[in-house]
Structures are given as C-alpha cells and as structure tokens.
C-alpha cells in the first residue's frame, strides 16, 4: 500500500481526549497515503473526528490531550518524533499549512490582513517585513482581490474575502500539503463556488497536495481524486473518487451518498437511522453495527480490519472480510 512516491503516509494515528465523563476516543487506526498533487477528501458527519485529524496533522491540539500517537511520515521522515520546537520550525507552514474552519475568526482583529498573511515568511524565511508584505500583496492579488486589501483590518473584509486571504496565508511559504478544514462551510453558495474554483486553479498553479475536510459530499466531488470516509473516529472506506461516487462499498458510505439530494434523477434522498455513537464508550465490534441494515452477530463481537476490495480501495466491513 505504501509507495515510494507518497508525500505523506499516516499509520495508525490515534488521538484521545480527556474529559470529565471519560476518555474520548476521537481518532483510531487512521492510515492513508498521499501522493503529490492528490486531493484527499475526508468526509463524515459532524463530530466524527474530521477536524481532529486536521489538527493532529499540524499538531495544534486542545489542552486536554490524553493520547497522541502513531506515525506521520512526511517525505520519508516520521515527524511524530520531532519535539515541539523542531516541529514548529520545520513542519508548520513549511511543509503543511492549513485553512481553518470558519476563516471569519482566523485573523487577529488588531493586525492588518497583509501582515498576517506575510507573517510566516518573516518567521520561517527571515524575510524583511517590507519584502514579506510585498509578497503577501502579490499573493492576495492572485487570489482575486485588490492588493490594497492587504492594508485593511480583518473586520473590514467580507467573509469570502477573509477566506481568500486565509488561503493566501496558507500558500505564502509554498508548503507541500495544504489542509482545508471546511473552507467554505460558513459562506453562501455563490461564494462557495468561487472559492472552490479558486482552490482548483491554485492547485494546478502551485502543484499542491490537498487534504480537503468536509461534510459536503457534493463539494468533495468537485475537488477530490480520493475519498476517505470517517465514522466515529475510524476510517471506514478509502478509495479513488471515481469508484467511491459510483460504487461505494461500506454500508455507511452508501447511506451517506443516498442521503444527498440530486437534481438529475427522481430518487428521493434517504437517511441513515439512529445517531452517531458516543466516542467515550463506542459500540463493540464494528462501530457502525447498531445503525447497519446488514449487521449480523459477527459485526457486534469482532472488529473488522480494512479489507482490500479493489485497486487502492479499502473497506472496514465484514461484508467484504475474509470470513465471508
């Protein structure tokens, strides 16, 4: 599964939070590979661990971390072994940058937007402030905004403008991988479409690798060439986008796709019964079994592994397991 071309390989990434009620198993057994210029869409319901995955990769974690382990191999090196200071210097924004969910609040209210876009250059590349600001202005223009917007304060920009500025900020140091954490969820539909087109354009120009985190399967299909489905903190399906959108294998993936309304057919959107399980005390066996139409005894007693069902297509479901 691991190939020499991969930019990023994640192996058994695990992240637990400590809370008053108990330990939340937010992410478990997350493994995937990314090749250069891939766009991996990470999809799933709210609270399934998508954003936690984004944070785990750049190591911006909340205070109540319980467990944080696994391998994150970036260009042949396991960055999980780096200490905090080395990780900050070598990985953050140099190799991986991120456009956070809700770019509305991604900017410090008291600094000008241009400076905040330029800041990583000053920190990491030790550029003069003036030179860094010039580069920031150019990049802001490339995002389709007037360069003078660099001299504005965040509150003087609209939501869509801030999102463009946040993308410019993510690109300023020319990182390998850009994580997009719900980059359009707070925007209106037209602005969403503009931002997605912009993301496509700069991906080709900058030869970027994206990890695109979203709950919106439609948007994901616009950008992604690969799809990872996360359910209750575990990856349940990983495949190429073409196959995923036409022949999803996991019952959960099927349910997700069936729940999306379409204009071109008469099919009525369906829904998945039940609610996502508690991550403090997840169901035994397959975590999806209480909501699964196809579940049988084995599903509640034994945990399925990721089974290979095709080229680059993995599914965590007993329907495709060896024992069947």
């Amino acid at each position, binding site marked *: 599964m691991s190939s020499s071309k991969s930019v990023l390989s994640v192996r058994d990434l695990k992240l637990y939070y400590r809370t008053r009620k108990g330990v939340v198993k937010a992410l478990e057994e997350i493994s995937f590979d990314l090749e250069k210029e891939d766009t991996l869409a990470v999809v799933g319901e709210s609270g399934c661990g998508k954003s936690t995955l984004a944070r785990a990769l*750049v190591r*911006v974690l909340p*205070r*109540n971390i319980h467990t944080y382990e696994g391998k994150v191999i970036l260009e042949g090196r396991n960055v999980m072994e780096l200490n905090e200071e080395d990780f*900050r*210097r070598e*990985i*953050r*924004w*140099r190799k991986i*940058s*991120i456009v*956070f969910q*809700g770019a*509305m*609040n*991604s*900017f*410090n*209210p*008291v*600094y000008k937007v241009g400076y905040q876009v330029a*800041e*990583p250059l000053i*920190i*990491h590349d030790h550029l003069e402030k003036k030179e860094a600001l010039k580069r920031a202005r150019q990049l802001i223009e490339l995002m389709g905004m007037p360069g003078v917007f660099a001299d504005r*304060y965040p*509150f003087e920009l609209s939501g869509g403008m801030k999102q463009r500025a946040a993308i410019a*900020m993510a690109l300023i140091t020319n990182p390998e991988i850009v994580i997009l954490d719900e980059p359009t969820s707070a925007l209106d539909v037209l602005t969403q479409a503009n931002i997605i087109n912009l993301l496509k354009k700069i991906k080709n120009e900058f030869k970027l690798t994206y990890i695109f985190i979203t709950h919106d399967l439609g948007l994901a299909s616009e950008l992604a060439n690969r799809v990872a489905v996360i359910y209750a903190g575990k990856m349940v399906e990983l495949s190429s986008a073409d196959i995923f959108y036409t022949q999803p294998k996991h019952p959960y993936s099927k349910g997700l796709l069936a729940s999306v309304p379409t204009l071109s057919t008469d099919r009525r959107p369906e829904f998945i019964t039940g609610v996502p399980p508690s991550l403090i005390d997840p169901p035994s066996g397959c975590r999806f079994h209480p909501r699964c139409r196809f579940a049988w005894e084995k599903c509640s007693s034994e945990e399925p592994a990721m089974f290979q069902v095709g080229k680059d297509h993995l599914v965590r479901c007993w329907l495709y397991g060896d024992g069947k």
Partner: protein
Amino acid sequence: MIPKGFLKFVAKRTVLLLISLVIAVYISILLANFGGLIDEMVKADLLMSITMNVRNNPAYQGLTASERQRIIDSMYQAALEARGLNTPFLVRSLYHLKNALTMDLGTALYLTSDSGSKQVRLIILERLPQTVMLFTTVTVINFFLNLLGGLFIARKYGSKIDRAIAALAPTSVIPGWVYGIFLILIFYTWLHVLPPGGLVDYPPPKDPALYFLSVLKHMILPMLSWIIAGLFLGLYSNRTFFLIFSTEDYVEVARAKGLPPRQVDMGYVMRPTLPSIITGLSLAIIGSWGGAIITETVFDWPGLGRLLAAALSYPDPPVIVGEVAIYAWLLTITVLTLDVIYAFLDPRVKVWGG
C-alpha cells in the same frame, strides 16, 4: 492627521463626563454636609461661643440680661453674615459645588495640615505624595506581577501550580492589613529587622539619599502585605482571562503558522486584549490615589486614607468634599483619555464614525 469628527467625538464625551462629574460632586456635597445639618451644628457652635464670650467678658458685666441678649444677637447675626451662613443651605450648596469644581477647596472646619494651615488644598497636598508613593507603587507592581504571572500559569493549564493557584484564590478575601499585622509580628516583634510603621526613622536622616532609603525600608511591609493579599486572586483571574482569549481561532492559526510561543502570547493573546488590560491598570491606579484607611492606620502611614477617616469622624465637610472633588476630576480625565486610547489600540473602535 486628526481624523474628521474626532474633535466632535471628544467634545461629546467631555460634555457627558462633565455632567456626571457635576452630579457626583454635588451628591457628595449633600452627603458630606448631612443635607445641611452640619451648617446647623456650626451655627449652634457659633451661638454658644458668642454667648459664652459675652457672658464671661467683664466689660459687659454691668448690662441687663436683655441688653446682653441684644449684643449677642447682633454679634451672632454679623458672624452668620461673615460666614455666609444666613443664606439657606440649598443656595450655599451651589456655591460649594462651584468652588469644588473649580478646585477652590476653601478652609477646613477643624483639621489642620502638619504645617498648621487650615487650607484644604494644602492639607490634601501634604498627604497625597505618601499615598501615591506607597499605594500607586504597590498597585503597579501587583498589576504586572499578576498579569505576567497569569500568562505564565495560563500556559501551564492543568498543572500542579495552576491547580494550587485556583485553590488559593479565595484566600484573597482577607484584606492586606490582616497580613500586615502578621508581617509586623514576624519582621518587627520577632526578627527585629524592619520597622513596624511610620514614614521614616526618628530622627529623620538629614542626607536626602539616606532619608529616601529609610522611607523605602518603611514601605516594605505595607507593600508586601498588599502583594500577598492580591496575589492569588490576581493570578487566578488573569490566568482565566488569558485562557479564554487563547482559545480564539486566530490564536490557533498563529500556532499552526509556526509562530514561537512567546510571539503567540504577546501578539495574539495579549495584544488584542490590551484595551481591557489598560482599563484595568488605569482604574487600579486611580483607585490607589484614595489611599487605604485601615492599612494606613495599621502601619501608621500618613496618607489620604487616614485623612479621610479623620475628616469623616469630625465631620469636616470641606476636607471630605475636597478629597472627593480631586478624585472625581482625576477619574473624569482618565476615562476621557482611555476613550481616546481605545480608538488607537483597537482598529475596530472607530469611535468618531467612518
């Protein structure tokens, strides 16, 4: 360079603040004079002393009772007129107001300054430097100690020291002078290393440098008592303040961008909250100018707090009103200055309209 409309904004704020200043000073005049009761007491005092004088004056011994009474009445009326006591209190209160607002603080009824003056202005000015020296210094020290300590502890959220501070915070309900008494017991009574109170050694050193050192030595215990009293709650509240602001999205972005932790703390946690930090500091400093009645008493410190206590117990309205008037003016000027500073610190506050 001055933005359009800025002067209009300042003028508007000034008028509003002056109105509250007038109301505050007038209310304190009514209260300090017990709504005019003090005038009646002064009148009664006056009548009694004139009566005693006339009765005891041998020159008037030969006169009949009614003649003596006439002399007493005319002297009393003259005295009332001389002091303006023949006009009703309501009219007099407006004069008091005008004088207080123009800093014409008049003379005290009973209190005198150490140099023997009855001028309220001199009485207050004599005490002000000691109060500023002790309480403003300790307020500023406390403020920065708690601010930077709070930031440090916020970064160690959930650690042993963090939990210890949270547990100790309620001890700050104990006022500083309680610690003061214990400090005097330890450092004076027991260890004999520091003086129990007062401003300088007796006799005061002639050399200004030695004089200053002696004053410093006398400041250690009162300052220490206030630092201990304010420490845990101060650290705890600053730590909580910074914890709340360090979960802002832009702080996480700054961390993800790879900014060094110090730069995140200073530029992304502290800087956006600077307006509230500066408000806290300015108001604390103004608060310190009132002195502290009990601490000054415990440490025998000649400051404004003890002056106010003395003025209240006589009561001596001109001194009370004088202290309030000075305080009210300082507060008004500070609030106005803060309004202007905010606009420069936080770009979102374009108070004079865009």
